[in-house]
């Protein structure tokens, strides 16, 4: 659903704000961001405490930034230089909170109708029915939020905020705690709804899986600043900072020293820690002797019980399994190769390979699965 012509008319949310938060004590936290959010889903990603929720609160008008400018479409919602600060009630931003904040004493229907007080009874009824249908909760309209399931509550909360025909939709981790299928179904309904409305949707999450599932555009936030933005692959697969790397699901974060550069091949060799273990990684801005960090996803590492031959992968490392742990449908193996690697395999693979603690194994790593972290 890319915009077809008329770029100017595409509603866009432009945010450029600074906000100092005075916590109890001296620790202060600075939100200093500048971003443009086009129509469609944009993911706001970052570790907890990065300022994601504060940013949404500023956009919704619940928190007043110290300085800056917020523009939705053609209307200025906040501009410190000319003293504009549209109150939250008049901003027409929809906001779905992490806790959903459905009114517990009102039925689903009454919750959804809450934001439509200015409409005629018939028009209000029509809009409520329409949105309840779009989010498949029409059958629950007389139930109280306490009596319906988590997924249904999330649908009801989405319906309540979207029925008001907002200019911007802010979602603060609204789908945490749902299983992947349910989450995907709700996101599909949201996309369907937005195909017609085409408003900017800012979707906050700190989990990697949600980024993969939603992926259109990602803005990565850390310590109150935008550290990168773009397509999910660009933002998350070349992590620039350690905490972001961990948040993005790079289970292996290894420090090492550059041994030599092979510029003709576009690679360099890195010796990991104090071990004799060396791996080949893509060429980065580094010189021989520099200390670097290498991020590798546990799921990107292959595990073999015999020394593999004839592979394109450049890194084959011998080691021993030091621990095995199954959680759900994922087996986590820790393999000591001088440094300890975390490797994810499926339970089926673990059984077929007869993995056990102490067993000798070989790890296979593609050069491009090794990401250099500055």
């Amino acid at each position, binding site marked *: 659903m890319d915009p077809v012509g008329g770029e100017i008319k595409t509603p866009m949310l432009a945010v450029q704000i600074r906000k100092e938060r005075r916590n109890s004590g001296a620790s202060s936290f600075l939100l200093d961001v500048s971003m443009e959010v086009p129509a469609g889903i944009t993911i706001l990603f970052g570790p907890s405490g990065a300022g994601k929720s504060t940013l949404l*609160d500023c956009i*919704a*008008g*619940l928190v007043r930034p110290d300085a800056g400018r917020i523009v939705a479409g053609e209307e200025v919602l906040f501009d410190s230089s000319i003293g504009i600060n549209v*109150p*939250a*009630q*008049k*901003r*027409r*931003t*929809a*906001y779905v*909170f992490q*806790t959903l*904040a*459905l*009114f*517990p*004493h*009102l039925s689903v229907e009454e919750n959804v109708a*809450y*934001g439509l*007080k*200015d409409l005629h009874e018939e028009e209000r009824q029509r809009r409520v029915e329409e949105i309840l249908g779009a989010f498949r909760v029409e059958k629950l309209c007389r139930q*109280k*939020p*306490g*009596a319906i399931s988590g997924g249904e509550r999330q649908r009801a909360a989405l319906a*309540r*905020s979207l029925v*008001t025909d907002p200019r911007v939709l802010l979602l603060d981790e609204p789908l945490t705690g749902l299983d992947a299928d349910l989450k995907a179904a709700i996101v599909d309904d949201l996309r369907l709804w937005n195909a017609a409305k085409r408003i900017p949707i800012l979707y906050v999450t700190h989990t990697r899986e949600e980024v993969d599932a939603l992926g259109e555009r990602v803005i990565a936030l850390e310590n109150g600043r935008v550290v990168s933005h773009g397509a999910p692959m660009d933002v998350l697969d070349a992590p620039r900072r350690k905490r972001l790397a961990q948040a993005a699901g790079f289970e292996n974060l290894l420090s090492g020293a550059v041994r030599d550069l092979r510029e003709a091949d576009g690679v360099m060799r890195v010796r990991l820690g104090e071990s004799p273990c060396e791996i080949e990684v893509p060429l980065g801005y580094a010189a021989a002797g520099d200390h670097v960090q290498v991020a590798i996803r546990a799921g990107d590492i292959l595990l073999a019980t015999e020394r593999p031959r004839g592979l394109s992968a450049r890194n084959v490392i011998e080691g021993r399994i030091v621990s095995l742990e199954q959680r759900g449908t994922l087996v986590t193996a820790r393999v000591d190769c001088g440094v300890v690697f975390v490797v994810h395999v499926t339970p089926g693979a673990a059984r077929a390979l007869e993995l056990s603690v102490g067993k000798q194994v070989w790890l296979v790593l593609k050069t491009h699965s090794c990401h250099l972290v500055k």
Partner: protein
Amino acid sequence: MDALFLSLRLALCVSAILLVIGMPVAYWLAYSSWRGKFLLESVVALPLVLPPTVIGFYALVAMGPRGPLGKLWFMFFGHGLAFTFGGLILASVLYSFPFAVQPLIASFESVDRKLLDASAVLGAGRLRTFWRVILPLSLPGVLTAGVLSFAHTIGEFGVVLMVGGNLAGLTRTVSIDIYDHVQSLEYADANRMALVLLAISFGVLSLVYAVNRRVWTPWAAK
């Protein structure tokens, strides 16, 4: 029996008045971020620690013919305020103020702030948010406030004696009636009245505690 009905009438008026003026005060105390808020909080709590005679004394002075309230009252109604039912109501409102306001503050504060944010984002102003969200979710607190100020007013003695005197049918409440009976050694009469008062107080307090245990809440807690 006159005294009992007078006490009930007084308590009903006082709790109704307290609910009406207690709500805006409690709302402000619950949500204001003004740094000097503690001052008003202290004033509201004063009747909890002051002897009733002190409150009664100041109320009497204010309501007297030379006091500001007394003068004002005389201008409008042509008679004094002290030793009248109206004066009794006024003094009782002062005396029971914390019993109405504090449960209201507690229940307003316990409403999830995110619900207020949600209401604002959905376009509701403060008044609508109060009527549609805060008040319905604070009903146990409102009931507690009403019931406590009712019970407290029924049981008061010192303030009533100072401000109302002891005029049969006009300002002689149950507690003063009991005192009178004891003074004249009519123990049987005193006992009858005291038992009624005991029963009312027990019933009312059971109601408050039952509601606060959420024995009957109209929506299921998650």
